[in-house]
């Protein structure tokens, strides 16, 4: 593997991992909040939260620029109080990738939580568990397979993020140029050999992640 591919690969792994962690925390919390009862309001909320999955990534990138940019309300606040800007940074790429990947975790989490037998949560309550204890000792251990499968898909999605990342973080080699951006760059520059090696890496990573996710959803001993 050429060293040309290693730098974007490592950056991609860093960005996708952090984005998945971020998306998991928010996705699990919101998935729990949406809950098992399908009311109209909650279904509308779930639809709105799923938007990043179906919107063109450029639309997502546009809104991220609006919010995180120099005049955006978070961007301005960050600049005024911390003197930092997320635009054209790898941290900005993390934000873009996590928002693009987040609906995959949210939907997996909500579905997995709904599948948990409510009677088991009641059993935990009757044994003196607080709601936090019920969540960490009954609900989450019973739902983790589905959530982890969702997280793997989210990781794959984050690895492949292109449009929103390009708009928010740009394509700065060594700094914000992830694998998918580097492939585009290489093809545009006519460097087919470099593009090919990175395409193969991406392909292998995606296939491995999908196989793992499928395995997780299949094996269900004890849970």
């Amino acid at each position, binding site marked *: 593997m050429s060293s040309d591919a290693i730098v974007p690969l490592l950056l991609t792994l860093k960005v996708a991992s952090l984005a998945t962690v971020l998306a998991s925390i928010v996705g699990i919390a919101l998935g729990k909040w949406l809950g098992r009862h399908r009311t109209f309001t909650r279904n509308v909320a779930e639809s709105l939260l799923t938007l990043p999955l179906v919107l063109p990534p450029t639309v997502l990138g546009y809104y991220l620029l609006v919010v995180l940019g120099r005049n955006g309300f978070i961007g301005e606040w960050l600049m005024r109080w911390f003197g930092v800007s997320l635009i054209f940074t790898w941290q900005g790429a993390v934000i873009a990738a996590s928002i693009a990947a987040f609906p995959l975790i949210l939907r997996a989490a909500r579905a997995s939580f709904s599948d948990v037998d409510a009677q088991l949560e009641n*059993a935990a309550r009757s044994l*003196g568990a607080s709601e*936090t204890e019920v969540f960490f000792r009954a609900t989450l251990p019973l739902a983790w397979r589905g959530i982890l499968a969702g997280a793997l898909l989210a990781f794959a999605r984050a690895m492949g993020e292109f449009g929103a990342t390009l708009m928010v973080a740009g394509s700065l080699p060594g700094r914000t140029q992830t694998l998918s951006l580097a492939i585009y760059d290489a093809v545009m520059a006519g460097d087919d050999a470099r593009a090919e090696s990175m395409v193969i890496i991406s392909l292998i990573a995606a296939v491995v992640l999908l196989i793992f996710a499928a395995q997780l959803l299949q094996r269900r001993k004890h849970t």
Partner: protein
Amino acid sequence: MRIAVDIEKKLRDASREFHLCMRFESDADVTVLYGESGAGKSLTVLAIAGLIRPDKGRITVDDRALFDSAHRIDVRARHRNIGLVFQDYALFPHLTVLQNIAFAQNRGWFNRRTVDADARATMASMQLDALADAYPSDLSGGQRQRVALARALASRPRLLLLDEPFSALDSALRDRLRDELIDTRRRAGIPMIVITHNADDVAAFGGKLVRVRDGRVAD
């Protein structure tokens, strides 16, 4: 111990409307709620445990109100200190027998692997030692029933509720486990309310009989 229940709850779904209106008192060691399935026995027990909320009424154990709509009292399930054995046992499938039994004594966010002597003692008293590291999916129906009972007892409840504890078992096993339950209860000295639709259970348990029909106590 004196248990007084006087509750109402309306339930509605697409196919039917059910009106629960239960009123009974008991100071017996064993109180049997007897009636056909769908009569409202399970709802009553879930309400006593604090897992469903009645529309109105009162539930008191001795002189302590667990639920009182007039005074806006509704003690949370986890503070009621009432042991409940569910009809399908509701054992935690991700935990071993020992971890299931120790669930109430473990505090915090994690299901620990090591448990204190108390849970082991309860397990031993129910002759479940050999199964300590087994998972519920490996157990027979009778073993599951025993684990569920041990788990409820290990929380040191002041009242034990059992919802059709033998319905999943064949009749020979049923007779044996019933005797075992009566014996265990006597040793633990905890009053219990047991639900059944089986006339043999009623005869064997003795105690106070409450006949339930269509959501009410039948005369």
